[in-house]
Each structure stands twice: as C-alpha cells, then as structure tokens.
C-alpha cells in the first residue's frame, strides 16, 4: 500500500466534491432546514416524555444529522459509478495503484466528510437551535465515528449490490428514510408503535440515536456509550463483509447521470 498514491486519489476526490456546490446544500442546508421545522414538534414530544426543559433541538439535531449522514454514505459508492461513467475505472485499475490504495483513496474522503458533516451539524445545532449537550463530547464523538463508519460501509455494501447508479441512489435513499423512521431519527422512538421500536434495534440509526440521546439528555460519558458504539462497529463489519463478498473490481457498472 502506498500512502502517496492514496493521497493523490483523496485529493482528487475532495476536489471533485468541492467542484459540486450542490453537495454542500445536501450536506448542511437541508438538514438545518429540517431541524428548524421539526424542533418545536420534537420539543413537545420530549416534554411529554418528562424532559421538562427540552426545546426539541435534543432530538432534531441528532435526528436530522443521523438521517442525512445515511445519504452521505452513498457518496463513496457514487465515486465508483462515476469512474465507470468517465471510463477511467479500467485506467485506474491498470495503474500502479493497488486495491487498498484505491479503496482508501475513495473511502477516506467520504468518511472524513461524514464525520465533518455531523460535527458541523452538531456545532450549528448548538449555535442556531440552542442545543445543550449535557454529557461527554468524547462519548458523542465515539458515536459520530461509529455511525459514520457504519453508514459508509452500508453505502459500499449497496454499491456492491447495485449495477447502476440509479439503483444505488434508490436503495440508499429508501434505506435512509426507513432507518431514520424506525431508528428514531425522523420522529422520537417513544412515539412509535412497540413493534417498530423492536424492529428499530436492527438498524444502525437506532443505536446511534440511543447513544446521542444518552449523551445529550442524560449526560452519558464514554463508558455509557460503549455498547451502542460496539453495535455500530458490528454493523460496519457486517456491511464490509457483504462488500468483500459482492464487490467485483472487474464488474461493469452503469453510471446514470
């Protein structure tokens, strides 16, 4: 593995993202708008659940951050489809870059963006929506990293199963909404039917929200979020295994612009 080659690819991917201002809207502005819209409703819900001083940002900020990071997970997969669309995939594979060089070069930027997106959304949540984080920021970071990793590996698993970029978008968007819905990001988990709450446990979003709410509302520390972090890493391992089994470097993929 050559870090120089990976770094060349990382720079290239970051530049491509920077050249597309639409991604900034999607990464930050959309979730912020959603937070503003949902905050009052979530405030009432949290107060009904006994969090008397809650203003709704405690649910709206992590919820919308978690939902939109799911969509960001597809960015990594999209870069592979784009290579096929530009006919640069074979050229890249025939270069001296190894498989690990290419994977790191493609996935590291998305992981960085996912983490940066969540950090920025939490910071803006504090600044714009009066979010108060009672617990440990280190604990919050553990969940942020674990969840970003889970969503990145989820995006890659879907990429490995998709033949076209349209399929990737459809599946990731669908999963993003389902995960957010049953995982307690789109609405507080406590207002959902019991069977949905049980089903939610099988989504990474549930464990991310469990960790976030523990830190934000209950003042949890690092030791309190070990379980959700490990579960998120477990999801990452499962999704990575799917990718390893299904991803074929020589497979032709179809990029639909």
């Amino acid at each position, binding site marked *: 593995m050559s870090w120089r080659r990976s770094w*060349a690819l990382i720079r290239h991917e970051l*530049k491509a993202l920077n050249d597309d201002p639409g991604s900034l809207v999607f990464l930050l502005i959309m979730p912020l708008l959603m937070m503003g819209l949902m905050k009052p409703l979530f405030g009432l819900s949290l107060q009904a659940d006994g969090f008397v001083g809650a203003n709704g940002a405690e649910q709206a900020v992590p919820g919308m951050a978690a939902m939109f990071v799911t969509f960001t997970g597809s960015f990594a997969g999209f870069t592979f489809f784009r290579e096929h669309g*530009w006919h640069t*995939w*074979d050229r890249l594979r*025939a*270069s*001296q870059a190894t498989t690990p060089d290419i994977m790191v070069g493609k996935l590291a930027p998305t992981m960085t963006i996912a983490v940066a997106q969540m950090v920025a959304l939490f910071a803006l949540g504090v600044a714009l929506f009066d979010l108060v984080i009672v617990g440990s920021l280190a604990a919050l970071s553990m969940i942020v990293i674990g969840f970003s990793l889970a969503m990145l590996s989820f995006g890659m698993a879907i990429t490995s199963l998709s033949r076209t970029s349209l399929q990737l978008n459809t599946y990731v968007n669908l999963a993003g909404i389902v995960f957010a819905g049953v995982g307690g990001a789109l609405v507080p988990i406590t207002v959902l039917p019991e069977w949905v709450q049980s089903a939610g446990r099988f989504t990474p979003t549930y464990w991310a929200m469990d960790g976030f709410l523990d830190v934000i509302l209950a003042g949890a520390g690092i030791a309190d979020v070990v379980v959700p972090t490990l579960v998120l890493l477990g999801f990452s391992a499962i999704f990575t295994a799917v990718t390893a089994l299904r991803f074929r470097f*020589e497979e032709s993929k179809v990029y639909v612009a």
Partner: protein
Amino acid sequence: MIEAALEIEALKKRYGEIVALDGVDLTVPRGEVIGLLGPNGAGKTTLVSIVCGLRRADAGTVRVCGIDALADPQSARGHIGLAPQELGVYPIDSVHQNLRLFGELCGLRSANLQSQIEAVSAALRLTDLMDRKAGELSGGQKRRLHTAIALLGEPHLILMDEATTGADVETRAALIQVVRDLAGRGSSVLYSTHYLGEVEDLEARVVIIDNGRIIAEGSITNLIAGNGGSIVELVFNGKAPILRGLDVTVDESVVRVRTEDPGREMGAIFAALGDEARHLQSVEIINPSLETVFLELTGRRYEPEENVDVMAS
C-alpha cells in the same frame, strides 16, 4: 539475453460459451511496434485487458519484461502504460491535473513528475491546453490527453487499444508519429487496431487475430508476398456461376479470382463468364495489401465492425 517486453503463450479466455482467446502465442520484442490487427470481437481488447491485469485468463502465461503478469499483475503494471479503447480522462479536471494524478499513481514525484508531464504534453501537443478542463477539449484533444497519460513514467511496454477510434486525421497522424518515436526511444508498443491502413502507416510487424486466434504474423511485405497477389472480386445477383480455368474461390454470390495481373486477367474472366455476365452486380480489383492477406487467410473480406466486441458487451 534481454527478455522480450511481452511474451504470451497459449493464452485462453472464454466468456461463457464465447471463446475470446483460443491459445494465443505472441511476443513483443523490446523496442518494437507490433500492430495487432483484427475485426471487432476478434479478441484484441481481451488480450490487452489480460496483459494489464484487468481480466483473468483461463489458461496460458503472460510475461511482461520477465515478470509473470498473471501471478504478479501489480509488478507487471510497473512496466505497462495503457491507453484503453474508451476515452478515459477526468472531465472535471484540467489537462495538467489529469496528467499529474496519473503521474503520481505511476510513482512520479516533484521535479521528475513535472518533467514527465512536460515531455508527454509536448509530444502530444497539449502544452497550450494544460489549464483547460478535459471536458472542454475537442474529441481529438481528449484522445491526445488519453494517450499522453499512458506514456507517463516511460513504461517499457505501451498498450494502445484502438488508440485512434473517433480521432480526426490530424490526431491520427500525430498518434502514429508518437508511436514511431516511442519505438525509436526503445519502448515496445502493442498497437491494437481494426484499421488496416494504420498498421501499414506504422510499418510495424503485424499480428492478425481473428476469432481469438493468431492467424498470421510477420512484416507487411512478407505477409503480402506470402499470401498471393491481387484479387478480382465479382458479386452476382443470386448464386455465383462456376468459372473454369481460373484460380477462384466461391462464396455464395461472390467469386474471387486470384491473379498477379488483374488488368490482363479481366478478359479471361469475362470470357469464362459468357452469358452469366448479365447477372454481374459489381466488380472490384483488390490490390495486394493486408486486405488481400486477410481475405486469403480467412476466406472473407476484412470488415472492421463485423462483430460486437465481446469485452464491450
């Protein structure tokens, strides 16, 4: 002894029921240009893809500069520059950024990287376009950038797969000149094409591949000398008549007459035709060339687009 840049033995590849390569043997000596000629679907792209590790072979051996390319494709790639069939450049990046990225992937750094970028951009006449985005280049300019990327790092073996597809006359001439220059500087080039004229322009040793098999190889002069002279091709409305006393091959409605002197033979042909001449649709004299070689070896005219390329499907 200096090993060849590329040595292929008994290479086989199937895609399901389709045989793409059926025991190909091929050697590209150092500093030589080999014109790999064949219609679409003949197996050229499959061959190139296996050499640079993009596809797995079913059987056979491939050695690049002495390295077993099937067992250790990563090491072999260190000696290979590939210009694939499809134009592969990043449209959102400038010409310089494209060259820089692929130069870095070759392992080039700092001053060496810059001098390589300058050298290949000068060779392919890209110097004035360095800040232009690849997506804004004309087709010919993109083709030149596409080829320039393959030359970065001065690879010992350059694989050019249908390098001039869609290129204008000027670009085609420039690319042919670049290939000649590369050979002059000691690089080996495997130049895959379905254009007979290009191989003739290159004056390269020719390898003709058809249906996954090498059917002929040698210099153009020797191939033509060894595979007959001119051919007079007669196409009839309906089934072709039998022509006695002439050296002919018949294929449904087509009769081909081999001759050293088509002008003189014409009288004999029409005399042999007699009343059947009224069914004649067309007459064509095919002068000695790679076209007649292909015809002699396969019994059919060279039709570059006769099949769908297996790799492209």
